[in-house]
């Protein structure tokens, strides 16, 4: 298994996440897709770190995980508030922020 295999897997995961993000309407699903994309990137970081024999990529993964955790906390809070106010979980109903 070379670097290429990891990158292909990472790419597939990322495409699944991005497509899901665009297609899915439920906020929770959108969240899951977001996490999928982040972890796809994490995978390529780790793969590169191993391949180039350098530690920076692995350190970056920690950063991404921390940010993802924070983002999950904020995002879930927003989801709860959204549900309380609008009684819905569809992202398409939260469209008042426009021109």
């Amino acid at each position: 298994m070379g670097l290429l295999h990891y990158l292909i897997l990472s790419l597939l995961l990322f495409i699944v996440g991005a497509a899901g993000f665009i297609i899915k309407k439920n906020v929770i699903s959108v969240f899951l897709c977001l996490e999928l994309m982040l972890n796809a990137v994490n995978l390529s970081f780790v793969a590169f770190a191993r391949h180039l024999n350098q530690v920076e990529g692995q350190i970056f993964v920690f950063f991404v995980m921390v940010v993802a955790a924070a983002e999950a906390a904020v995002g879930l809070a927003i989801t709860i508030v959204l549900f309380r106010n609008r009684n819905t979980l569809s992202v398409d109903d939260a469209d008042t922020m426009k021109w």
Partner: protein
Amino acid sequence: MTDFLWLIPLIPLAGAAVNGLAGRRFPKPAVTLVACGSAAMAFLLALGCFFDLMKLEPGARHVLKVYFSWIASGDFVAKAELLLDPLSAVMILIVTGVGFIIHVYSIGYMHAEDGYYRFFAYMNLFLFSMLTLVLAGNFLLMFVGWEGVGLCSYLLIGYYFDRRSAGDAGKKAFIVNRIGDVGFILGIFLIFLTFNSLNFQEVFRQIAGGAQRFPVEAGIGILTAIGLLLFVGATGKSAQIPLYVWLPDAMEGPTPVSALIHAATMVTAGVYMVVRCSPIFSRAPFALSVVMTIGILTALMAATIGLVQKDIKRVLAYSTVSQLGYMFVAAGVGAFSAAIFHLMTHAFFKALLFLGAGSVIHAMGGEQDLTRMGGLRRHAPITFWTMLIAALAISGIFPLAGFFSKDEILWSAWSRGHPFVWLFGFITAGLTAFYMFRLVFLAFAGEGRYPEEVRHHLHESPASMTGPLVVLGVLSIIGGFIGLPAWLGSNRFFHFLEPSLSMALQPEHPEASHAAELAFAALSIAVALAGIYTAYRLYIKNPKRAGELAVRWKELYRVLSRKYYVDELYDAAIIKPALSGSTHVLWKWADSKGIDGAVNGAGQAVQYFASVLKGIQNGMIRSYAAWIFLGTVAMLIYIYLFWPGY
């Protein structure tokens, strides 16, 4: 004491700051103390500096104090530097001395006015600006003072800002002065371009220097151009043809302001500047003859207008314009020290005349029309006697101050080969005596031409007003003795000024006999007495006669009382075209259509393009995500295809 030279302008500035910022909360005595105290301290310091200067050898009387580098940009360096030499010493003594006296007078005159503190703050600010002007060691600092006095003049003319005419007069003074200032600053530019310096001493040394780069110019050269531009500034500030029109209107300000700014000090700034630049002017004969011609024409014209004015302050205003003309005549014939001599004596007696007029107006409860006065001699004796002294002094009666200085000017004009200038000046002297005594007779002699309730109100002014009158009266009597003409001894005043004028080129003129000078002095006195006698005949002996003459010479009288229609002429030739040009071209076309159109058009264009693009921003997160995704992909493709190395 010269170490404290910088304090002379700065103390009045501090006074202005204190009164201007906090004076509203002070009781009146505190305001008075700050204002008059700072003027008095400046005067004492000026005296100290003067005596220090006297201790030096005449050749060494040139103290230049450089404090800091004010502007330095490439070749251009302007320093904050003050210059104390005989010329500026005389000026600071006049400014602080007369200024202090008028400050004291104002205590009484302004006691009932609103904005008492505001008045004194402006007055102190004026002292600061004027002292900066006369002490400045280079052209640029002088220009700062020059503009500062213009500002104070504007503020004080418009002191009664709730009166429309006062506001208009202030604006008129400011705008007319701006026209002159353009000339002045262009002159400064030209000086820097030519000499690469703005310091007086440096510029004058280059002009007078051994290399003979700047000989006397036969035709029109660079010095003539500089001189003429500077003189444009002087005509604005010193109210000469064609820019004199603001000074009569400036009488809208309180009377002490007219005395200090529009008679004794500020309006003489132009004369001071011409004398300060005497090394330039004396090498530019054409510029000098322009100065002389403008001066004598202004003197004669203003005197004729003064003959028929009814407002007591306007008579004095035209008289000031006329006397300033005399000073420019003196400078124009090359008698620079005579110009400063007349400047000094004029400061005494004209300030006295204005303060006396203020005392009259005060007594009359605000009345300024001479035809509604009369008989005030009994009610205001001190005012009467001091005004009489001033009138005699300005008429040139021996041995009062005005005689010596005016005679010196007329004699210089004659002895340096300008007989026509002498003749005009001679006529003007007669007219001056006439209109001055017309004023004195109308105000103080005969019976009162006012209603009974005014008569009850009549009173002599308080001591704070009559005191300054008496001091100035004494100065008007003895002020001339420091400049005795040659036939009465040596002229110490001219001797004292010599070091300041040493770089000026003295024109060769034949030494005339003392007998001739004496004869001309006798002629001057004779014409003054003739003027006084005429006024006596017309206004005391036969009071109806003046009215009859006005009817007989109806056309002439109307032209004079309408001031030669100069205001109307300016209105038709300059103000109306400027106004309609600004309205129709600048406002309705350039501003409304051009500038507004461009701004509104930009807004409309943005709105149009936005209406196309705003469809993207629909609030749908999924659509945003799709756009971001597409954008990223597009960027990656672009980088892959077009960036080298990928």
